[in-house]
């Protein structure tokens, strides 16, 4: 019992160290790279890393395979955008409101889909995501529809934004580590592996499933809200199913159910997709093929391959 306990905490601690090492390396990047274009690329890949971590909390740790991460990023961005557009609310209200709003909505979605599993859960969350996108895209009066909304920016400096995103990434990683090391994390793993077994041992499955939904959606909402202020424009395109597909491929390629995997996957997929775009717009072909190969043959992902016990 105690041996297993130590094994899990030790693995998690090593996982966090590796992820923070990547963050440290990234923190040194602006010393060498001054091109605003590549810094922008890195900011977007950190945005995807946050989405990947959020989705991984729900799908990789708690076993709830949702198809709505991009929709929650879109909703988070719109909460901030709409508060500014209609009420002229400053960003220090708009961004926390996005976190709170997506957490509440995620909690509600979690309550609704509580009893659904596997394909049923995937179809329901997919429908939720598409409905959210169609409603936002068609409410011309309230959201300006497909034209999108302009959002004020937090700061002009691109390096500043880079460090802001990096800081948030580090915070999310540490918070996830603390959660996964404690009671909630162990309960999530138990629910993922056998939810009936978990319930029979007295775990409050309802509470922990909805908690996973709320936290995961809040991370996605925060990422979307920050991204909106960075690009100064939010549009329904943030919630396209393709974006969810990208997030899933990043996690599958990097390694599901780990902290480092989603970060590695997001950086690798997004940065090299910029490069492949230059080669001939083949980035989506390469990554969709990669995700099939990884899911079929290397189910632990890159991070799992790297840390395989010898």
């Amino acid at each position, binding site marked *: 019992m105690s041996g297993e306990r130590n094994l899990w905490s030790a693995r998690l601690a090593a996982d966090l160290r590796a992820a923070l090492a990547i963050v440290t390396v990234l923190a040194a990047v602006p010393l060498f790279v001054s091109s605003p274009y590549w810094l922008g690329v890195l900011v977007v890949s950190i945005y995807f890393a946050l989405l990947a971590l959020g989705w991984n909390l729900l*799908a990789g740790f708690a076993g709830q*395979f949702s*198809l709505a991460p991009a929709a929650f990023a879109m909703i988070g961005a719109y909460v901030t955008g709409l508060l500014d557009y209609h009420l002229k609310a400053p960003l220090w209200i708009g961004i926390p409101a996005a976190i709170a709003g997506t957490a509440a909505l995620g909690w509600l979605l979690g309550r*609704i889909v509580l009893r*659904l*599993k*596997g*394909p*049923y859960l*995937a*179809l*329901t969350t*997919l*429908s*939720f995501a*598409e*409905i959210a996108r*169609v*409603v936002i895209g*068609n409410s011309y009066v309230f959201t300006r529809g497909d034209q999108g909304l302009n959002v004020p920016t937090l700061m002009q400096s691109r390096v500043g934004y880079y460090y802001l995103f990096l800081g948030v990434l580090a915070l999310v990683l540490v918070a996830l580590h603390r959660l996964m090391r404690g009671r909630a994390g162990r309960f999530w793993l138990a629910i993922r*592996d056998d939810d009936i077994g978990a319930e029979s041992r007295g775990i409050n499955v309802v509470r922990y499933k909805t908690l996973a939904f709320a936290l995961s959606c809040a991370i996605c909402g925060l990422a979307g809200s920050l991204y909106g202020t960075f690009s100064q424009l939010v549009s329904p395109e943030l919630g396209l*199913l*393709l974006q969810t*597909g990208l997030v*899933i*491929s990043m996690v*599958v390629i990097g390694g599901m159910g780990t902290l480092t995997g989603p970060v590695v996957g997001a950086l690798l997929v997004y940065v090299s997709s910029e490069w492949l775009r230059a080669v001939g*717009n*083949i980035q*989506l*072909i390469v*990554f*969709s*093929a990669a*995700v*099939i190969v990884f*899911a*079929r043959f290397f*189910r632990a992902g890159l991070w799992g391959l790297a840390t395989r016990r010898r």
Partner: protein
Amino acid sequence: MLALDLFVNGLIFGLFYALMAVGLAMIFGVLKVVNFAHGELYMVGAYTYVLAATKLGIPVWLALPLAALAGAALGALIERTLMRPLYAGYGSWAIMKDEYAVVVTFGLSLLLVNLVDKIVGPYPFRGPALIETSRFAVGPVMLNGQKLVAAGISAAMMVALALFIKRSLWGRQIQAVAQNRLGASLAGIDATRATSLVFSISGLLAALAGALLAPLINPSPDVGAFPAIKSYVIVVLGGMGSIWGAMAAALLLGVLESFFAVYVSYDYRDAFGLLILILVLLFRPQGLMGEKGRDV
């Protein structure tokens, strides 16, 4: 009289939806997974038809079965390369089975869309019609030749499929595998062949739907997304895995949507179906027809 027009046109769209959704329902029946690349079989059918007819100069009535065969071949290929681990002696795959199926078919859908986008180009193509007529009126109902012929072929295919499943040996084997894979294997049924057959039929029907609609929709690489989402709604509405439920639900959704688009809101007609999907899964997960409707 608008109502009659809407009803007939809704029914026709329902027939096209049925062609798409029945294959998805059969796959769910035998493997209990959703094929998220189903819309891309439709896209491949539409492209095969249009390119064969326009670039290779194959007569349209030959291009149509060719497109259906391309879909069947692709379906069989998907089953052989990606779906087999779900059932053929990979013990540890039972865990995370649903997740694997979602990831791999989702990835396949992205791959096919982008391959076609890269190879053929992102621009929509216009397919040649099977028969060239302008719109004509039958009583109060406005129709055109292509739509009528396509609806006729769809209806014929549905009848043929029903007979195949009910009467033929292979059809009965598929029913047996859907009810109990292990039991069917013990009775000497080749469950692997039955599964492969289901994927081929599913691909054939979806590709045929794409080819029949190609002259009406001008296919582009992402054309499969909407019919795929409709089929998810239909499969849920009909009770996941039920062929007859899917056929009935397809007609129902076609008619409901056609009225919803005119009387309630055209912009939200696609959200309407998805709302139905969520509500059915929450309050009547066995589908409208219930357990009895679940033959396959």
